[in-house]
C-alpha cells in the first residue's frame, strides 16, 4: 500500500495542474470568441472581392498570344517552390502545431516526386519557427507573434511573395495552415497561393455588364495583388481562430483527465487511510487480548 503522504502530495500536484489547464482553457475560450469574430468580419469583403474579380477576369479579353492576363496568373513548370507554414505561437493546444509541421515535412518529402527542385520556407508563428530553424532547410522569412499581424503586415508578406513570383524567382507558393471548421474541428490544409487560380466559369460575367473605370485591365492589375494579400491575411486569421479552438478543446480534456485522476487518487488515499486505521485497531485489540 502506497505511502499516505506520497499520495497526498500527488493529489496536490495534479490539482495544481488542473488549475492551470482550467485557466488556459478559459483564456482560450475568450480569445476564440474574439478571433472568430475577426475571421467572420472578413466574410463580406471576401465574397464581394471574389465575385468582382471573377466578373473582371471574364470581361478582360484574352491576349492573342495566349499569355496570361496578369503576371500573378502565370502558370509555369513548378521548380522553385515556396512553402508558407502557419503555426501557433504557443503550445498546450493538442496536435495543432505538430499537425502543420508534420504536413509541411510530408510536403518536403514529396517534393522530388512532384518535380520541385527547391523548396524554401516561410515560417509564420513561433512554433513553426522553432521547428524549422533546427532543420536543414532554406528559410526565406520567419516571423513569430502572429497575434500582432494585422491586414497590413499580412499584406507585406504577400507582396514580398508576389514580387519573387513575378520576377520568376519562384514558380509557385503553397500555404499549409489549420483551417477553422468549427470550435471542435480544425483541419490542416495545403493550398496553392500563387499562381492565383480563379475558376473561370463562362457565366461568371452573367447578370450585369459593368462599366469599368479605369479599364478592366487596370482594375485587374489592382485587384489581383489585393486578393493575394487578403488570402494571406485570411489564412492567418483562420489559423489563429483554429489555434484557440484547438487549445480550448485540448485544455478541456486535460482538465477532465486531471479531475478523473484526482478522483482515483482520492479513492486510493482513502483506502490506504482506512487500511491503516483498521491495522492499528487490530494491533490494539490483539495487544489487549494478549494481556488477558
Amino acid at each position, binding site marked *: 500500500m502506497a505511502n499516505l503522504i506520497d499520495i497526498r502530495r500527488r493529489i496536490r500536484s495534479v490539482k495544481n495542474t488542473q488549475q492551470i489547464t482550467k485557466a488556459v482553457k478559459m483564456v482560450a475560450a475568450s480569445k476564440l470568441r474574439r478571433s472568430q469574430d475577426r475571421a467572420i468580419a472578413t466574410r463580406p*469583403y471576401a465574397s464581394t472581392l471574389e465575385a468582382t474579380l471573377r466578373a473582371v477576369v471574364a470581361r478582360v479579353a484574352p491576349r492573342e498570344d495566349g499569355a496570361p492576363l496578369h503576371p500573378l496568373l502565370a502558370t509555369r513548370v513548378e521548380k522553385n517552390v515556396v512553402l508558407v507554414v502557419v503555426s501557433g505561437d504557443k503550445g498546450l493546444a493538442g496536435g495543432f502545431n505538430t499537425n502543420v509541421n508534420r504536413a509541411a515535412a510530408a510536403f518536403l518529402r514529396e517534393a522530388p516526386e512532384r518535380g520541385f527542385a527547391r523548396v524554401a520556407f516561410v515560417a509564420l508563428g513561433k512554433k513553426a519557427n522553432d521547428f524549422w530553424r533546427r532543420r536543414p532547410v532554406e528559410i526565406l522569412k520567419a516571423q513569430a507573434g502572429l497575434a500582432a499581424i494585422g*491586414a497590413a503586415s499580412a499584406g507585406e508578406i504577400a507582396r514580398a511573395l508576389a514580387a519573387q513570383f513575378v520576377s520568376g524567382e519562384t514558380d509557385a507558393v503553397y500555404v499549409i495552415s489549420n483551417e477553422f471548421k468549427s470550435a471542435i474541428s480544425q483541419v490542416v490544409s495545403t493550398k496553392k497561393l500563387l499562381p492565383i487560380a480563379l475558376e473561370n466559369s463562362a457565366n461568371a460575367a452573367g447578370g450585369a455588364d459593368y*462599366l469599368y473605370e479605369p479599364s478592366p485591365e487596370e482594375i485587374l492589375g489592382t485587384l489581383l495583388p489585393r486578393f493575394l494579400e487578403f488570402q494571406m491575411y485570411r489564412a492567418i486569421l483562420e489559423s489563429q481562430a483554429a489555434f484557440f479552438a484547438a487549445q480550448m478543446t485540448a485544455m478541456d480534456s486535460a482538465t477532465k483527465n486531471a479531475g478523473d485522476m484526482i478522483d482515483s487518487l482520492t479513492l486510493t488515499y482513502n483506502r490506504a487511510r482506512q487500511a491503516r486505521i483498521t491495522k492499528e485497531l487490530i494491533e490494539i485489540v490483539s495487544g489487549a487480548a494478549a494481556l488477558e
Partner: protein
Amino acid sequence: MDGRLSLTVVTPERAVLQAVACDEVTLPAQRGEIGILPGHTPLIALLGVGVVGYRDGSRRAAVAVRGGFVEIAGDAVRVLADDAAAPDVIDAAAVSAVKQEAEGRRDRAAGDEELDAADADARFADARLAVVRPG
C-alpha cells in the same frame, strides 16, 4: 428596387457600414469624384483616398476611405476599401498627430514609393479629419 440605394462599406478587418439605405452617394474614384443616384448603371471603379458621402433624405453623413474599389449593381453600392473609418471611431487629436507625422515624412521622402505612402497616409488623415469636422 425601391428606388433607394443601399450602401455597404467593408474593409478586410471589419464592416464599417452595412446596407445603409440612402438616396445619394458620392465616391472618391481615382479619377475624380463620382456621384451615384438610384438606378445607376452597373459600375466597378477603383477608389482613391477620400470621403464617401451619403445622404438619407436631408441627413448627410460620411466615412473616410483609403484605396480599394466600389461595385455598383442594381441599387447596391458596395465599397471594398483597404481601410475605412466612420466618424464615431475617429479620434481627431490622434489623427492630427498622424497627419503631421505623415506630412513630415512626405517632405523628407527619398523615393517615389516612400513619397506615395506618406502622401496617402497624409490624405487619409485629412479625409478622417474632414469626416469628423464637417465644413
